[in-house]
Structures are given as structure tokens and as C-alpha cells.
């Protein structure tokens, strides 16, 4: 069964919608800066979203607000903004922050007084991402929030693919969202993998990641449903692969076999070979370990000529949103026929035999891959195709 992508939407520090984001990609602007969303002594640069549409503002539920911005854009892109009634619509979204009951003020008060106002808990209970989105856009169907750390967004899209193939729903909104939050900022800082300057994915001198925030959403449908709706020009979600490292909570398996397994599974599902892939949108966090493992695997699977890039220099690492935002960027690149420069990259790393593109680059081909690696050793790969020849 072919599953098609009929709509995409995204929001990040690079822009409040895809038009703005692609413009930022073309211009090479980097909107990183100091933390303004909460007080902290940490001075790491971060990528904050500046413009959340007022109508989607939800007090104390920033992740949901980000998700709703991307959902609205994706639904509009798919021509579904008006009426979803009568359709079995599934919602599958990845997140990290929105899944955790980690309100610091609630806990500070509880710890000191033994009691605390329960409104932070109420917000948490109302803020399950998939459920909250389903209620906001008034759809009824399966809702699942994927909490797979930094591959959550990509895995959520993979789950939705399985739903559609198995008839669980007719249409699925899939993706991920995460806000910039003090808790992961402290946590990533403690791991010693956050850069004190703007990040440089795959660069020889990279010093770690920058945290960001955002949301990415794709609208997935069975090809039959999209044709009934009269949709002609579509993209395809052709394959999804996922594999565990079974190695370490926070470090990728050095031999990269988990990522390679996920990639080969996704390619096999799409029924293509590595030679068919015209570019890879890499996870590329700019940490020493991730980029070394990922670059080595990309070189091994796709060969020395593979065109690849990381957008984290534009968006920061958006955690549970990352895999989804990057799938959205991959889809947009296939539509537009170009990929952005891997911003921040300057010097080839002797330990990585391939290097990312350093300028806006035209691409020719039908298939592209987006990769995600995560805490816990999760690896995910998505194959997205354009429909030049009428289907995948």
C-alpha cells in the first residue's frame, strides 16, 4: 500500500512556517542566541522560536502551541483545514518535554511546603501532545504520543505509516514538537555535549550541540484516500526503518551498526538501493560521537559522493521535534529541488570520510532519506519520495 504525504508544516527558530524557514535556509541566517524563555545561569546559545501565532498560544503549554502551529500549516497544505469529520484521523506525535511532569516551580513549592497548587499537574494531564492536538482540531481516532527521545518525531511518522498500512485510520497527522526547557538544557549541559558557540555539524572543530525548539508535522494518507480527495501532486513516505543499538543510554554504538540497520531497513521497505537516494538529511547534532558515527555510516552505505547536510545549524537540536522537522525539510527539498548548505561546517574532519554540502545545492532524483539518532540507542530512518514516475 502506498502512503502519501499531502501536507507539511513546520516551525522553528529559522521561521514560523516553511516559507520563512526555507528563506532562512537560503540566506544562511542563524537565529541562535541567549536563552530568553526562562532564567538560567547557563550561557549556551539556543535556538528559540520568536513568533508563535497568538491564536495557538496556550499558557504553560508551549510544546502544544508549537505543535498546533505546524498542524495548521500542514492541514492547510493538504487542503484539509476545513473539515475532517467523517474521516478516521489518527494523531501520532513525538515529544520529550511535554511527556514529563517536570514543572520546577510546582516541585520547588511541594518540596519546601509539602503541598503545592495542582494546576501544573492539570496542565500536564491536559497536555498529552497527541490527545491535546486531537481535541483542538476535533478529530476522533487513535492518538499516540511517542517518547523516544531525539528520534521521537521520526518514529512517530513511522508509527503513523504502520497505522495506515494496517487500516487503523484513513489519514494521520504525524510529527513531533518540543519547547526549549530548562530541564533538558541542564541535562544536556551536564553530559558535556552542549557547545558554547553556534554548532558546526560534521565540522572537524565541532564542540557540541545547541538546543532548539520547534515542531514539524506531515499529513499522511493512503493513496486511495488522497485520490478520492482529488489530490494529484504528492510525495510518498516510502520506507521507515528503526533499530536499537542495545549499547548505551547516551552514546551511539561506535560501529554504527544500529543506524546502518535502520537505514537498510528503510531502503528495503522503499524497494530501492542506496544509489537511488539523491540526498540525506542527516541527524548531525554536532557532537563528537554522533557526527563521527553518522558520517561514517553514511559514507559506508551511500558511498563517497552522497550529498548530505544537517539543518541543526539553523534550528538547533529540537529533540522530540527534530526527526519530524527534518522529515518536513526533506519533503520540502524534494518539492523545491534544492537542499540547503550544512551551515556551520567549514573544515573536513579527518575521521569522517565524507563532508556535507556547503552551499545551496540542486538535487536530481526521486528519493531522499532523513536519519535520527537518540538517547537510548534508537536509530530511525525515513525514505521520502517525490512522484515523478507516478508512485513509489
Amino acid at each position, binding site marked *: 500500500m502506498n502512503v502519501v504525504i499531502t501536507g507539511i508544516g513546520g516551525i522553528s527558530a529559522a521561521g514560523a512556517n516553511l516559507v520563512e524557514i526555507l528563506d532562512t535556509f537560503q540566506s544562511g541566517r542563524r537565529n541562535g542566541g541567549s536563552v530568553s524563555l526562562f532564567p*538560567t*545561569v*547557563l550561557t549556551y546559545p539556543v535556538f528559540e522560536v520568536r513568533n508563535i501565532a497568538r491564536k495557538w498560544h496556550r499558557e504553560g503549554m508551549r510544546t502544544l502551541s508549537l505543535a498546533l502551529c505546524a498542524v495548521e500549516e500542514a492541514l492547510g497544505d493538504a487542503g484539509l483545514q476545513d473539515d475532517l469529520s467523517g474521516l*478516521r484521523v489518527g494523531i501520532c506525535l513525538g515529544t*520529550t518535554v511535554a*511527556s*514529563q*511532569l*517536570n514543572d*520546577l516551580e510546582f*516541585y520547588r513549592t*511541594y518540596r519546601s*511546603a*509539602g*503541598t503545592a497548587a*495542582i494546576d501544573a*499537574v492539570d496542565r500536564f494531564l491536559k497536555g*498529552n501532545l497527541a*490527545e491535546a492536538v486531537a*481535541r483542538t482540531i476535533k478529530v*476522533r*481516532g*487513535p*492518538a*499516540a*504520543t*511517542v*517518547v*523516544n*527521545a531525539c528520534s521521537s518525531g521520526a*518514529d512517530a511518522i*513511522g*508509527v503513523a505509516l*504502520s497505522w495506515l*498500512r*494496517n487500516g*487503523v485510520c484513513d489519514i494521520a497527522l504525524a510529527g513531533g514538537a518540543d519547547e526549549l526547557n*530548562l*530541564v533538558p*538544557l*541542564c*541535562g*544536556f*549541559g*551536564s*553530559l*558535556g555535549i552542549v557547545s558554547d558557540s553556534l554548532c558546526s555539524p560534521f565540522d572537524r572543530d565541532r564542540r557540541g550541540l545547541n538546543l532548539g525548539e520547534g515542531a514539524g508535522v506531515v499529513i499522511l494518507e493512503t493513496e486511495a484516500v488522497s485520490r478520492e480527495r482529488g489530490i494529484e501532486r504528492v510525495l510518498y513516505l516510502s520506507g521507515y526503518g*528503526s*533499530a*536499537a*543499538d*542495545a*549499547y548505551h*543510554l*547516551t552514546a551511539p554504538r561506535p560501529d554504527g551498526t544500529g543506524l546502518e540497520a535502520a537505514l537498510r531497513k528503510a531502503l528495503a521497505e522503499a524497494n530501492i538501493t542506496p544509489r537511488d537516494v539523491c540526498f540525506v538529511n542527516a541527524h548531525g547534532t554536532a557532537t563528537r560521537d554522533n557526527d563521527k558515527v553518522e558520517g561514517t555510516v553514511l559514507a559506508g552505505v551511500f558511498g563517497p559522493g552522497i550529498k548530505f547536510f544537517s539543518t541543526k545549524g539553523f534550528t538547533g537540536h529540537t529533540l522530540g521535534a527534530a526527526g519530524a522537522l527534518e522529515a518536513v525539510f526533506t519533503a520540502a527539498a524534494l518539492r523545491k529541488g534544492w537542499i540547503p548548505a550544512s551551515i556551520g561546517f567549514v573544515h573536513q574532519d579527518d575521521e569522517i570520510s565524507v563532508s556535507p554540502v556547503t552551499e545551496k545545492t540542486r538535487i536530481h532524483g526521486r528519493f531522499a532519506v532523513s536519519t535520527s539518532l*537518540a*538517547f*537510548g*540507542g*534508537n536509530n530511525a530512518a525515513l525514505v521520502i519520495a517525490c512522484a515523478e514516475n507516478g508512485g513509489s
Partner: protein
Amino acid sequence: MNVAGIGVVFTRGRGIDSYEEALRQGWVPPCRVELSSAPDISLPVYYVAQETITDKAVLRRIRRADRFSKMAVLAAWDAVQDSGIVLEEKGSSLGIIVATAFGPHATTFRFLDDILDYGHANVSPTIFSHSVHNAAASYIAYVLGTRGPTLTLSQFAFSFHQAIILAESWLNEGRCDYVLVGGVDECHTVMEYICSQKLAIADDGKIKPFHFSASPSAVPGEGSVFFLATRTNTPKTYCEISGLFLYGDGIEEAPDMYIFDADGMAGDERGYKDAAATSVMIAGYSPVFGSMMTGSAFHCAAGALMLKHQIRYACPVQDNSCGVNLCAVTESAEIKKIWCVRINCVHEKASIRLKLE
């Protein structure tokens, strides 16, 4: 898909045999803990004893893991052992799906302690990495040495239902040959406080699943249940299992028994009356393991045991003010279909259907 093995970690022990024994034994009082906010108030809680999750052989390589992960790892490990299936050479064909409503929140609060006590720049990386929701799934893969897809879902009342639906999809697609699918949730002092504020707590320590009350009583619990699921039949197969989100309001095709997840966790339970109004036998075993949003997994384990052994377990708390067709006696019975039904706080229904293969 078929249930080939089951692992359980709960308040009365570990393993499917312990669980079956508890089902036969019926209700026992929960422990009572003093609320830190009000020491004169005690709360009934079904905690898992520390010795239950002390297994030096299985947990040898994950000594630093927290309670949450250890409960999940042991239940998952036991499900594999129970199945008799040797996973060597099958590592990449085994998927893992962990369902949790609240994740490792005790560790999250320990991390917040670090932030408050030591400042933003001096927190523990070890505590942080364990506070991530998917740490338990990662540890399961690590301990079992499996390299297939590994996913954690969090959907409050329907977490386990979504996990079952996905496991079935993965098997149907051929993404995996086996899926370890289960639920895990923990209790903790902060959760005790939240429960005391948000829920009506059963003072007598008894969850009453058949009151169908607008404000039902709960007894917080914790634990983990895992199922080893596969499409093929195995010598130890318990039953078929499938998940279903119910788009309509009704429940079609009556089974031989309904098991209600009515445990006081999701508020208004009057919606269960629809199913209870039929002549179908009704059961509910939450008083054995406590109120948990992932309690559906425990109920599915009870259902799987009943189908496999062709027995009905008496409901542990038989307060039957609504006069439903209650399963009141443990006895042999011919049972082919059991629907486990849960209604969430906005009155949506999902069921997990167990059938004799």
C-alpha cells in the same frame, strides 16, 4: 497476534505464577504510607517491594538503573523466559514497545532535586539520562541484546492499547517476528501527593470496579506487565490479543466476559454501565494490583490466564451495588473471548480483545 509469554512485576511479587496465585487469593490490603504533606493522613498504595526487583543475575549490567526501568526489564525478561523462546539469533527481529502513562517521574524529580540543590550547571548526567522516558525500553534491549525497533508510547489511559495496536501492526507488516509489548508505571511520594489531590482515594483500601460512580475511588499502584507477542503459534501460547480504538459509542460482538479497567484513575466511570447492562459476565481485578493507567496490561494478563487455563477468577472486591452479572467465584469455565475495556477521562473507549486461538 498470539501471546507466547507473560512477565509480571506487581505488589505481590514477580512472575506469571505469582500473579495467578494472587488472582486466586483475591484482595489483600495495600500498604499505607503517610503523606509527607500531612503525616496524620495515610494513603493506601500497592507498592512493589524492593526485594521483588532485586535480581543480581538479570540486572547485573544495569545496576544503576532506577526502579522504573528495573520493573520493566524484569517483566520483559520474564515474558521471554515464560515463552520458552530462545532469542539468540532473533535479536533484530524482536521489537520492543513500552507503554507508560507517567514515565520514570521519580527520577525526574530526583533530577529536579539536583537543579534546586546544586544549580543549573552542577546536575548529575546519570540521573538526567535515566529520567528520559525511553530509558526502560533501552535497558530492555540492552539486557536482552535485541536490535529491532524499540519504542516508548505515553498516552495516559490508552498507552497500553496504543502499544498493542502498534505491536499488531508491526507483526502484520513483517517489521518484526516477535514484539515484547508491555506497560510500566511507578508510584512515588510526589505521585502520592498528586493522587491525594486529584483522586478520591479508597479509605478502606478497596477499589470498587462495579460502582460505576461519577467519582470512583482509587488505590494507587505500580508495576509492569510484558507480553511476548508473535504471529505464529507456540507451545505455550495463551491466547490471541488485539487492540481496538472504538470510534463508535457501543461495544459490538459480545464476548464471554468483559474485564473493566474501572480503577478510579480516569474519573467518571458511569460509561461502563453500557457494557454492564448486557448479560455478559463482568470482572475487574484492579484491587489485586492497584490503580494504574497502564492497568489494562494487568487485566490482559488475567484474561490470558483465564483463557489458557479455562478458569474464571472471582473478582477480588465484589461490591456489586449495581447488580451486574459479576464473576463471583473462581471456577472452571468455558471461555473463548474476553474484552478488556477502558474508558478515559473524556469518555472515549478502547478495548483489548483476547480470544482463544
